[in-house]
């Protein structure tokens, strides 16, 4: 009897302590996430310039968004970016990891060089890229020039500008390469030996052993990649301002411009709400689908 009460009181004490310790996070969760998300929908129902009082307009902003071709362009651009940048990022990261796993002696050097751009400030990288991608004075076009390939106006031509953004995003793939490398090294060599005995070639080994065992990291990479992709802002803001011909007008930039340049706060909030829903739906779908393709057994 005495002992049981002690256990209960210890549970209670632990519960209180646990909640106490995580309480800053609870505050953060409600103040910095739940509140703004709800507020997005609330503000989204008003016409509000930032001055005076918001005026209730119901679903007017959502109708307006539906009619605004620029909003649709921004969604198209954002999806285009995510669909290209994320899988490419995973592929590049895996390729880098596979190469680094080949017992190359100077691997530490590559590790450093490949990781470096991931921590360099994106705003500074963006400014560098303006010059790096310049059709005449840029390094890339100079190399093209040496190879007799015609110069590309990466940031000035609407056909290339989104690809230029995708290219810039790849400079963050290095750090995922290192995560994949760790995962590769954790795969027991006996698995491959057994496969060799069965006569499996390099490709089959990769497809049936390596890739399935990398799926947890792939999941992680995709989740982070989609989050980053849907919120992409800085490269477009600095390099192109959304142009040329609105080809790099991403949804985040659309929200920023409406909220802080055109005084359409209600509409910007409505657009943020929609971006949140897209983000949430994608997250849920990916986590739900993960049980069909992510292999946790040997991980």
């Amino acid at each position, binding site marked *: 009897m005495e002992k049981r009460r002690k256990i209960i009181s210890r*549970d209670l004490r*632990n*519960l209180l302590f*646990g909640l*106490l*310790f*995580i309480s*800053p*996070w609870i*505050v*953060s*969760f409600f103040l*910095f996430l739940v509140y*703004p*998300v709800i*507020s*997005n929908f609330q*503000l989204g129902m008003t016409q509000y310039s930032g001055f005076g009082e918001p005026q209730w307009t119901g679903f007017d902003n959502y109708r307006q968004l539906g009619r605004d071709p620029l909003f649709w362009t921004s969604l198209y651009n954002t999806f285009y970016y995510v669909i290209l940048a994320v899988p490419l990022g995973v592929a590049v990261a895996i*390729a*880098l990891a596979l*190469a680094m796993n080949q*017992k*190359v002696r100077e691997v530490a050097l590559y590790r*450093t*060089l*490949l990781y470096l*751009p991931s*921590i*360099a*400030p*994106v*705003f*500074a990288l963006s*400014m560098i890229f303006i*010059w*790096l991608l310049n059709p*005449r*004075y840029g*390094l890339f076009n100079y190399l093209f020039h040496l190879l007799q390939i015609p110069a590309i106006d990466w940031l000035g031509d609407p056909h290339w500008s989104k690809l230029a953004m995708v290219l810039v995003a790849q*400079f963050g793939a290095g*750090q995922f390469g*290192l995560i994949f490398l*760790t*995962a590769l090294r954790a795969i027991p060599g006996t698995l491959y030996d057994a496969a060799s005995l069965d006569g499996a070639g390099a490709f089959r080994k990769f497809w049936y052993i390596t890739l399935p065992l990398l799926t947890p990291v792939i999941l*992680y990479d995709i989740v982070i990649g*989609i*989050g980053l992709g849907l*919120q992409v*802002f800085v490269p477009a*803001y600095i390099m192109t301002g959304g142009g040329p011909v609105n080809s790099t007008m991403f*949804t985040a930039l659309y*929200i*920023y411009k409406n909220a802080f340049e055109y005084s359409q706060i209600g509409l910007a*909030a409505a657009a*943020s709400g929609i*971006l*949140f829903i897209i*983000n949430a739906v994608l*997250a849920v779908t990916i986590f739900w689908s993960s049980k069909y393709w992510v292999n946790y057994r040997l*991980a």
Partner: protein
Amino acid sequence: MDAAVQRNKARTDLSRQLLARLFLIAMSAFYISPIYWMLVTALKGNNELAQFPPTLWPREIVWQNFEQAVRSFPFLSYLQNSVFYAALTVLGSVLSNFVIAYGFSRIKWPGRDLFFYPVIASIFIFIHFPVNPITMVPMFSFFTRLGLVNSYIPLIAPTFFGNPFFIFLLRQFMLQIPTELSDAARIDGANELQIMGRIILPLTRPALVVVALLAGISAWNDFLGPLIYLQNDKLYTLSLGLTFFKTAHKIEFNLLMAASCLVVLPVIGLFLLFQRFLLEGINLGDGR
């Protein structure tokens, strides 16, 4: 027979290594190209800058570019602000995330895992922290009503309430510390705070270094936050100051690149110093 197979295998290994090496060299060159181009451009004179084809290495190295860049905008004031922002972000992130992660890993309480799901889920939104495009519009209104815009509070205060990515990272690390250590201390009569401070804190230090580094770098690199919340030239960080400087003044690209060097090189320096920690830290965050 056996020897032949061995030889064969060694040969394929060698060719594979060669291929891997070529690929890695090419990719490293590609990855380092922006930093290389920044450095080279920063050292070029005005005439060489406008030359076609561009030179791959400055014919004449113009160190004065750095001096001129620093003099042509309030570099020191921006630097001070960036350091201030980064330092307080480090403080807030280390303090809050350590305590929160402790609550999620070292104390067993009913509902702990249930509470942890939202942490994982919100990584999605908080990928940019403290300011991200999804929540920035209402948060700006919120801080406006409190009269806190045009100060560092909207940028720094959130870091004192935890960040899901760091919580996750520290929790993974703390879960690997045997529970017996805490239990033994408890039997010896230590209370929770003592256990946290005397036993877990020292053991978590490597992970905390990673959090400190990543938090500091993210504040140093933050652009959207200062863009929205800082209205006064005297408060600008390097990220904002540099970008605005580019639009506000007619400046040669070599000076802009020289200034960029001064922003990027500290980050690179820090990285090289603490590389070991960071590379280990990455593996903490890989989800397993």
